[in-house]
């Protein structure tokens, strides 16, 4: 995508929305912002941004409710979850609802702009912590499984996630594993897919049991 991606902000803290706007500056085109679930869904459906920057914690149902309200009517709108909490329950929850990535609110402005661009291009953005969560969640043996392809990570996917968790950017991962950056992206998308569709019963349980790091 060559043009600047259009972005919509959903966060119940006005101060934070202002801060994000200022930090993103000219890198993206902010087309609107909302502080509540209902208003957010309505405005997003009206303005159809490329990417919605979504706070995980919102009154009245949280980020998940916004994704669920928008996705059926506008599947092309992509969501990047933003949170201070790092609680596995929240992170896994919003990803399973359909967000294409997750970053923490301490992320720097340029990094955030980069993450937005990648989500707008259809890529997936995993933070180190999310990668750690996924490795942890898929670590236990899945037990009897209806769909082993969905319920387990391949060795290559695990390697990619491990490198993300170790703090490697995609380019460095590609170099380390001697594959192309595009292939790294494919692996991550595949992990996201499994995370969203897997029926592993222990995935949710794991997330609820594991509160905060």
């Amino acid at each position, binding site marked *: 995508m060559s043009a600047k991606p259009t972005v919509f902000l959903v966060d119940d803290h006005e101060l934070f929305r202002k801060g994000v706007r200022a930090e993103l500056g000219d890198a993206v085109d902010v087309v609107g912002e909302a502080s509540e679930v209902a208003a957010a869904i309505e405005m997003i459906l009206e303005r159809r941004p490329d990417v919605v920057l979504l706070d995980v914690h919102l009154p009245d149902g949280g980020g998940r409710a916004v994704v669920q309200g928008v996705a059926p009517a506008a599947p092309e709108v992509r969501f990047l979850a933003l949170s201070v909490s790092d609680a596995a329950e929240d992170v896994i929850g919003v990803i399973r609802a359909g967000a294409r990535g997750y970053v923490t609110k*301490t992320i720097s402005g340029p990094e955030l702009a980069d993450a937005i661009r990648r989500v707008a291009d259809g890529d997936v953005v995993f933070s*180190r*912590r999310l*990668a*750690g969560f996924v*490795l*942890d969640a898929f*670590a236990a043996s899945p037990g009897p499984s209806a769909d082993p392809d969905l319920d387990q990570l391949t060795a290559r996917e695990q390697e990619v996630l*491990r490198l993300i*968790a*170790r*703090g*490697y950017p995609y380019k460095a991962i590609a170099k380390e594993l001697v594959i192309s950056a595009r292939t790294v992206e494919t692996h991550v998308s595949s992990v996201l897919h499994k995370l969203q569709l897997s029926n592993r019963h222990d995935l949710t349980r794991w997330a609820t049991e594991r*509160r*905060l*790091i």
Partner: protein
Amino acid sequence: MSSETRRIPARFTRSRTDRVLAGVCGGVARALGVDPLVMRVAVVALTVAGGTGALLYVLAWLFLPEEGSDRSLAVAAVRDPGRDLAEVLAIGSIALGAILLVRATGVWFSDAFVWPLLLAGVGLAVIWRQAGADERSSLLAVVDLRLRRAALARVAVGVVLVVLGVGAFLAASDAFSAVRQGVLATAGIVGGLALITGPFWLRMGRDLTSERRRRIRSEERAEVAAHLHDSVLQTLALIQRNAEDPRAVVTMARRQERELRGWLFENEQDQPDAQTLAAALARAGEEVEGLHGVTIDVVAVGDLPLDDRVRALVAAAREAMVNAAKWSGDASVSVYAEVREGDVSVFVRDWGAGFDLGAVAADRHGVRESIVDRMARHGGKAVIKTAPGEGTEVELRL
């Protein structure tokens, strides 16, 4: 009593805040310095025992000014009789005549009971005429309560019980005069009173409970406020004073964030000593962050309890963090720990300057002794991967 020691003059008023009906009991109790509950019980008891309680209450309502006002309803009624005083007098005299007529026919309860109630009724009429909107609404609320079906049934049952009790008492005193009858009568009266006044006691209990709950809530709020004051507000003040030093600001904000998180979520970092690998690494990361002003983010997959070997691993990892913080020039360091089938690995990664491993290996005592040798002594190993311009990664295995 000197004027200094005299208390604030105990002025009898009707309370605006502590009121069930018109604030009489609340106000009088405050003026007398007793519990309002005592006053209320007294009024109810006197009302039941002959009706004087209601009369006194209504008189007080008439003659006590409301808190903050200096004119009672009675005074207002006299000063401002209104144009229809004659009409009121006419109606009043007709009513009085009717009552006297009824009295003469013999359908009469007793003078001691009817006259107080009648006076109370007249008083209520005056109040009704003079009252402001809110007093009327509290009167209406009482009427409304009486009209509600459940309340009505309860009052009816209560009245029947009282009547039965009184009847039994009269019968007993007449001829049969058995102690058993007396006990029955008393039980009936007590039961009836309990039914009639039950809601009052219930409400009193509820008020006390909600009062206690409010107090607990406000104490909690005070505790939160105190904590925020000691921590967050102090840090914010420090940040304002150090606004021109971004590094110091970041360090302070991070430290405060960690502290607040620990306080809010009460996770394992609250324990005086970390008990597991993940907690110990997080603790080490915080310490190095505090000392060197870099961001250190620890991600752990799996965990295990600390023993001597794991402690050595954490110490080596801490040294690697310190090196990265001091020499790499990168503002953030990634620490990743993984426990898999008994194998432990920790990676400490920065994307800073890096260095030529061959050129410095011989004289870098820090790396040799505190990382590589330490790991070897505990049956593990350390691998350092670095090159100028590509950052450094220290991999520790057990």
